[in-house]
Every structure is written in C-alpha cells, then in structure tokens.
C-alpha cells in the first residue's frame, strides 16, 4: 500500500489517463457501433454483410491480437498513426479498442431494436402513424430503454479493457503506473494493489450508477 500513498500523484495521473483513453474510445465505439447496428438491420444486403463481417471478426478475436494488428501490421500496409506526446501506441491502441468495442455496441443496439415486440410497430401502423412516427414515437423510445443496461456493461468492460492497451505500451494510464513504480524499487504487491484499487474506484461506482439507471428506466412488460 505504501506505493499508493507515496506515489499518489502518479496514480491520479494514471487514473485520469485511463479515463481519457476510455472517453475517446467510448465516443468512437458508440458512434461506429450504432452505425453498424443500422447496417445490420438495413434492407441493403452489402451493408448487412459489412455489419456481420465486422461483428464476427472483432467479437471473436482477442483485443490483444487486434492491438498487434493495429500497431505492427497496419503500418506495413501503409496505414500509419500519428504519435501523441511521443507515444506511438496511443492512437493504434485507441483505434483497436474502438473497433473491438464497436462490435459489442452494435450487438447491444441491435438486440435492443429486436426486443421491442412487433405488435408495438404493427399497432402504430394500424392507427395510421407514418414510418418516421412509428420509429420515433413508438419503437426507438422503447428500444433505448432496453439498450441502456447492456450498453453500460459494454462501456464498463471497455474501461477494463483499456488496461490491455496500457499493458501493450501506452503510457500515462493506470497499468503503466506499475512500471514507473517498480523502476524506483517498490514491490509488485504494493504497486499493483494500488493499481487494482484505482481500477475499482472506476468500475464499482460505474456499476452502481448503471444499476440505479437500470432500476429507474426498467420497463414493465
């Protein structure tokens, strides 16, 4: 524990570093994931193929392998990432995290749309609502409620996965705090206990908040 007390500023820096990576990745993953979900329910077959292929590839391969692909394989194909503050791994790491998480966001959104009983849309059409009205006033509000809890778990899992990006060599986040501590002689036990506590400071409140939101918006069907 002494590492956490003595090197507290470094932990705080790592804490916000993790939050920063998570914020970038969450915004990217939510946008791309929602787009992919739109692809997967669209009537246009090529778009559906793109969505299905993306989900199959990214959901079934480990994030660590995707990090290797983004950091070492894509540059060989001419796709290079800018460095951030001298760190070459930041953008490849965040990009891999975004693409990986987008697959899970896509599935959560899609199952949310599917979870609205067909009778709801049929009834809306039967009383004469147009497509936009059916979607906007009847289906989407219900879908959003079912989507929030699984989306929340996806984002919490993503915050935890950002540790893998750190283990891979992105500095300035929580995992990398340990390397700096060990370099100046702290034991792994004291250094890593601090890292673990810092992660719990993010994931446990996030989990509680998600539970509270879940109870508030629960739909009684």
């Amino acid at each position, binding site marked *: 524990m002494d590492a956490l007390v003595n090197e507290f500023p470094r932990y705080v820096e790592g804490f916000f570093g993790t939050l920063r990576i998570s914020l970038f990745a969450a915004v990217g993953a939510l946008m791309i994931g929602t787009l992919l979900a739109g692809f997967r329910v*669209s*009537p*246009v077959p090529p778009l559906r193929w793109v969505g299905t292929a993306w989900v199959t590839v990214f959901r079934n391969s*480990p994030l660590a392998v995707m990090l290797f692909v983004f950091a070492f394989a894509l540059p060989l194909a001419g796709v290079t990432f800018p460095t951030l503050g001298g760190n070459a791994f930041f953008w490849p790491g965040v990009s891999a995290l975004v693409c990986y998480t987008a697959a899970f966001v896509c599935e959560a959104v899609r199952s949310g749309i599917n979870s609205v009983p067909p009778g709801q849309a049929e009834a809306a059409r039967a009383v004469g609502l147009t497509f936009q009205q059916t979607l906007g006033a009847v289906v989407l509000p219900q879908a959003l409620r079912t989507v929030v809890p699984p989306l929340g778990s996806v984002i*919490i899992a993503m915050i935890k996965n950002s540790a893998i990006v750190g283990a891979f060599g992105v500095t300035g986040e929580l995992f990398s705090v340990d390397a700096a501590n060990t370099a100046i002689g702290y034991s792994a036990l004291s250094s890593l206990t601090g890292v673990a506590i810092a992660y719990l400071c993010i994931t446990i409140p996030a989990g509680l908040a998600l539970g509270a939101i879940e109870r508030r918006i629960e739909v009684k069907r």
Partner: protein
Amino acid sequence: MTASVLYDIPGPVTRRRTAISTAVAGVALAGLIVLVLVQLGEKGQLEADKWGPIFSPFNQYFVAVWTALGIGLVNTITAAALTLVFALAIGTLLAVARLSSTKAYRWFVVTVIELLRGLPVVITIYFASRVLPEIGISLAPLWYLVIGLTAYNCVIIAEILRSGVAAVPRGQSEAALAVGLTRLQTLRMILLPQAFRIMLPALISQLVVIVKDTSLGFVIFGFSDFVRAANTVIQYFAGRLGINLALQMYVAVALVFILINYGLGKLAEFVQRRLARGRRTAAPPQREVPVDAEVGAP
C-alpha cells in the same frame, strides 16, 4: 428481417430504391476491397514468399512455422481448459456459498465477487505473475495465467449459476423442501443441476471469453502462448531471412482465434435451441444474465 415490421410491404418505388442502394453499396464495397488489395500490392504485402510460409503447405518453411505455432496453441488451449475446470469448480462453490450461507458470511462472499468482477482480467493475470513469485510462490508461467484467469472467471461463473438458480421455477425448491430435503440438498440435487442446464449457453459464451483472454499471456514474462509463438516466428523471419511477416502472421493468428470462437458461438446457439425445444415445464430465465458474460473481456 427486423425492420419489416416498421413499414408496410414495399411497393414498386421502394423496391426500386432498395435495388439502387444495393447496387451503389455493392459497387462501393467492391471498390473498397480493390483499393485495399491495390494498397497491399503496392506495399509488397501480397508476395508469395510472405504468405507462403504460413498458408501454403508446399512452402519449405510451412511445417516448421506451424510446429512452432502449434506448441504455442497447445499452451493456449491447455490454459483455457485448466481455467474452465478451476473456474467451474470454484464458481460453483462461490454460488453455493452465496445462496446458502448466513447473512454475515454471504456479505463476505458478495464482497469478494464484486471486487474480482471490477478488476480488469489483465490486472489479475499480471498480479499473479508478479506478486506470487515475490512472496515465494514460483510456478511455471502457464499457472500464473491460469490463476489470473480463474480469479476473474470463477466469479463470473458464480453469477451465471446464481441467475440460473433464480430461473428455476419456485415449485422445484418448494417441492424439494416439502419432501424433507435440507436447503443444501435442495441446492445440490434439485436447483444446481437445472441451473447448469439453463445456463449452458451462457457458460459456453464465457468459454469464448476465456479462450480470448488466454492471449493476455503476453504480459507474463517467459510464457510461450500462441501469440508469443507467432511473434517469435516473425522475429526469426525478420532476423534470419529479412522477410517481415507481421501482417500475414497476425492475420493467421486472428483467423485461428475467430475459427475457434465462431465454432464455440455456434455451439452455444445450437445448445440454446436444443434446450428451448426440450424444456416444456420450466419457465425461461426471468431476465438477461446480469453479468457481462458476452463482453466480459477481450
């Protein structure tokens, strides 16, 4: 089609519009694929001496490359299998402890579960590999991976089983208690067997997560898993032969993982369908599994 309930059966105008968008999207997709291939060709990534050693059985290096990868893959699969066994055993114990114990004791179990669930699995693996040797427990590197993975996955499995028990109809436990079984007997003989059955698809999905997580062995110093073996082969080719295989090798590694996990995913779907057909008396699970069985970790 999910969208079809949102609008009426398309008329001729809509059908034509859909056909046009399909053509446009198809051309765009084909163009993208051509663009990627051209780019790869320009960078010299399509040459036979880069793909051959991994994908062509007639290449002189093929056997050696896959022997090296195979050793890593065996380590990876061994770690996944051991983790599954330990996580199932400890997870069942945790679930029983949580469901059957007194209040004070249960509070302790819940705390352990919540703490371990909140940690990134890469941290538990790294913790095991760094801290255990430090306090004098030196094991083969494989065991650090198994211990780290088990620490995380046993609590997930405990939660899966707990929601499985909750999904067993109340009449089952009421009947068991009425014929004079104790609470522990009811759990062991009546509830848990049914919970395992109900939750089999979720357990298989968790196996997919475990297989993916074994790739996190790269944080353990000196552990030769599948990914590490791939990196060694890449280094060998770059150093001895001056050929950079990175792109081709990572494609191969990803393909192997995708094949294994896609297969497991299909198995989970199949089991789910079989169970849905086979069970008439029991109610379906009341709600989604409240754990991140699908998204737990990479």
